[in-house]
């Protein structure tokens, strides 16, 4: 044992500070003593420290998360379980969840990201679903710093190594850069699974007498105190000393665990399942029983271990990967063990459900833990943290760029194309297997990924959206805009928005400004979800994303699942534009606003002003129009987001290998990122369809130009700015690789 946080054998007189070293406040320690009516044992203290950590207890966020709309007729399982589950028709359910592995990825990018992938996959197959798709949303500091290049390449390599080997395709992702993430990268991974309605499994313990069987990898001293120490404490120089508790992922073990569990479900051999993630065994034994209102006895001597002489606290806190707790009827235990053996997975009977309501753990023949299960979970501390609007908001809003003259448009566009954040992401997704299972109809590189739902004519669309700049300038508008953007993105491939998962990456919740940003974001997300009629079915909160006192941008990430009832063939794609086709801009006519735009950031290094807020009516209209146009066979649909209309257009030209010419009146119109707008490209003959759909739905549309030629031309009353297509292609293709060169 190296790090002091996990040195559980303190010298004389240190006992009082032990709880502090485990990340518990003095008040929390007193709360434990009052609850138990005595001093906790070391093992009990270890359990409380991980279960009451921010990461596991959501003690700072729960009060706000209750604001989310979580209900809809198609919701089968909402927030509270390992993943949200929705009905996608014909007897099929989809399980969706997103989770962060930010701090571990900073400590060891490759393994940190890899184990993050393993963790979110477990959350999905715990529900009885076969994981069919992964999606990564990443934030890093600027690539001109070697350390950031190292973190970036390590994280991508880790996701590739684990995701590819475990056999779950990574079908898309999202990437952004900002100084704020330099010492605090964000690694959020979303996983989608599908299952038959009758195969749904919940994380419940079953009645007294049910046997707890620990499946999977042996337990070692991995990530001890990971939850409390890594995910719930801020970074500073000392964080590098926390390294020895790093976990190593074993995709092969996870693959076998997936197949073993799916066989257990198929044969109805388990009552319930809980994965071992943050807080390991402590969480896996206490959460299911407190859900079912029972208790459990656990014998640590039966846990299969990798290292000898592990202490009880170590066994309880270990975050060794690729483990599952199955709750099994006594008569089926032998069959369960047999299935595990066949899949070369270890299984040990470690406990039994009781009616006591207590978690009772023994080690070396003596009882080391005896506490009420609920005291570890439901009765964990909840904080109404003080919150207050930051003093800087007014200044931020008034801090706008005053343009004396029209900037060079061609140069501006080329600069955007050459930004790693906006250029091609092929360098990333070509390292990911995104084709496995033969489901990928529209793959990475589009607004959303479209998967077929095997065995049906249905399709599932996936996307995530985040925008640190806009959320920083206005957390509520920002949070809401992300939901609208995600909805528009799935509509771009013809899907109807169905469910949201969110990953809320924020700074230090003990700062009122950060809690205000958090509350505002949750409010914005909730408003947009209500307006769209889309429920939040799950998510994750990551606080303490700060380094040396600098908080990250408020960085919510919105994951959206969309449903296509009947797959359209061929679906809209960026590469289906052709010479002579007409170009339309569909959506609300805003007074152009560059606040928070990529253009201002890239060309002026400026982040200020107040971004446009969303508009319910315009938002809904845009989503409906997009879906109708997709159904009507429109070859190209692409939403206007980061980089504005100019970039959206350039992306279509690059993908399709053909130029375009568009007319504009106000140049800001080309770069503003105002919401609810998209580009449609269609043969001139389809003009009536476009106008019919748009006027029917009541959404403004404008024919702005025509595809053709070998350059991208912006024309203002005869004054033309042109970017040579081949130059654009090169800038866009090399954006990432160029910046990754040492």
């Amino acid at each position, binding site marked *: 044992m*190296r790090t002091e946080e996990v040195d559980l054998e303190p010298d004389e007189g240190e006992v009082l500070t032990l709880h502090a070293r485990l990340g518990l406040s003095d008040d929390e320690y007193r709360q434990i003593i009052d609850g138990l009516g005595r001093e906790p044992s070391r093992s009990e203290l270890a359990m409380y420290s991980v279960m009451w950590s921010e990461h596991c207890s959501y003690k700072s966020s729960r009060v706000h998360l209750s604001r989310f709309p979580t209900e809809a007729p198609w919701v089968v399982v909402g927030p509270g379980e390992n993943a949200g589950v929705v009905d996608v028709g014909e007897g099929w359910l989809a399980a969706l969840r997103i989770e962060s592995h930010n701090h571990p990825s900073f*400590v*060891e990018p*490759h*393994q940190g990201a890899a184990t993050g992938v393993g963790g979110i996959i477990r959350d999905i197959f715990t529900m009885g679903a076969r994981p069919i798709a992964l999606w990564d949303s990443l934030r890093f500091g600027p690539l001109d710093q070697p350390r950031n290049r190292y973190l970036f390449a390590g994280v991508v390599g880790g996701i590739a190594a684990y995701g590819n080997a475990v056999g779950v395709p990574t079908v898309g992702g999202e990437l952004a850069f900002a100084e704020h993430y330099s010492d605090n990268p964000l690694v959020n991974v979303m996983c989608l699974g599908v299952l038959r309605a009758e195969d749904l499994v919940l994380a419940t313990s079953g009645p007294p007498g049910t046997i707890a069987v620990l499946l999977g*990898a042996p337990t*070692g*001293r*991995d990530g001890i105190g990971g939850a409390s120490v890594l995910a719930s404490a801020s970074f500073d120089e000392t964080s590098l000393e926390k*390294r*020895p508790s*790093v*976990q*190593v992922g*074993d995709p*092969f*073990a996870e693959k076998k665990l997936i197949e073993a569990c799916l066989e257990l479900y198929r044969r109805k051999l388990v009552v319930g399942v809980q994965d071992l993630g943050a807080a390991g065994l402590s969480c896996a034994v206490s959460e299911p029983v407190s859900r079912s209102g029972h208790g459990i006895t656990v014998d640590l001597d039966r846990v299969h271990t*990798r*290292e000898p002489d592990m202490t009880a606290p170590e066994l309880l806190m270990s975050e*060794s*990967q690729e483990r599952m707790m199955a709750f099994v009827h006594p008569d089926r235990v032998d069959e369960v063990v047999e299935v595990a053996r066949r899949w*070369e997975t270890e299984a040990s009977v470690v406990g039994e459900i009781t009616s006591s309501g207590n978690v009772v753990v023994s080690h070396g023949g003596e009882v080391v833990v005896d506490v009420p299960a609920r005291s570890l979970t439901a009765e964990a501390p909840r904080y109404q943290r003080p919150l207050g609007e930051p003093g800087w908001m007014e200044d931020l809003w008034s801090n706008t760029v005053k343009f004396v003259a029209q900037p060079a448009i061609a140069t501006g566009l080329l600069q955007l194309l050459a930004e790693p954040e906006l250029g091609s992401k092929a360098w990333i997704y070509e390292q990911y297997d995104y084709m496995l299972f033969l489901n990928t109809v529209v793959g990475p590189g589009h607004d959303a990924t479209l998967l077929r739902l095997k065995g049906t004519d249905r399709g599932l669309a996936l996307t995530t959206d985040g925008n640190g700049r806009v959320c920083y300038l206005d957390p509520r508008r920002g949070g809401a805009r992300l939901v609208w953007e995600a909805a528009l993105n799935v509509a771009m491939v013809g899907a109807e928005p169905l469910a949201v998962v969110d990953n809320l990456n924020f700074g230090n919740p003990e700062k009122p400004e950060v809690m205000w940003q958090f509350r505002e974001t949750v409010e914005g997300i909730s408003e947009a979800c209500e307006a769209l009629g889309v429920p939040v079915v799950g998510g994750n909160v990551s606080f303490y994303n700060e380094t040396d006192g600098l908080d990250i941008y408020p960085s919510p990430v919105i994951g959206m699942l969309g449903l296509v009832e009947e797959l359209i063939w061929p679906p809209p794609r960026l590469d289906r534009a052709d010479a002579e086709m007409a170009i339309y801009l569909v959506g609300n006519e805003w007074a152009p606003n560059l606040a928070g735009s990529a253009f201002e950031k890239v060309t002026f290094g400026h982040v200020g002003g107040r971004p446009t807020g969303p508009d319910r009516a315009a938002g809904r209209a845009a989503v409906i129009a997009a879906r109708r146009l997709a159904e009507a066979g429109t070859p190209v649909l692409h939403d206007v987001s980061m980089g504005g209309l100019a970039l959206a257009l350039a992306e279509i030209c690059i993908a399709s290998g053909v130029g375009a010419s568009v007319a504009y009146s106000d140049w800001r119109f080309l770069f503003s990122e105002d919401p609810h707008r998209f580009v449609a490209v269609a043969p001139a003959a389809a003009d009536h369809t476009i106008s019919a759909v748009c006027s029917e739905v009541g959404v403004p549309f404008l024919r702005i130009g025509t595809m053709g030629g070998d350059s991208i031309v912006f024309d203002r009353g005869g004054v033309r700015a042109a970017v040579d297509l081949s130059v654009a292609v090169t800038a866009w293709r090399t954006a990432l690789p160029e910046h990754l060169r040492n």
Partner: protein
Amino acid sequence: MAITRRPEIADPEGATVKKALTDLGYNEVRTVRFDRSIILDLEENDATRARDRAVEMCNRLLVNPVLEEYTVEVET
């Protein structure tokens, strides 16, 4: 330079290969560990300088201190 995995860090590969050997009937195998060694051919006559540079390379690139420990040997 010889690079060893820190003992407390899980080694799935070693465990898997041990199992494979056992399945092949090599029951005497207690543990299997994989180490890496990196052999650099340096254009550098001064042995101490060579070592210092090598150590620097290990810390900056070649070794992952989170997972590994290393020793450097210089041959002239």
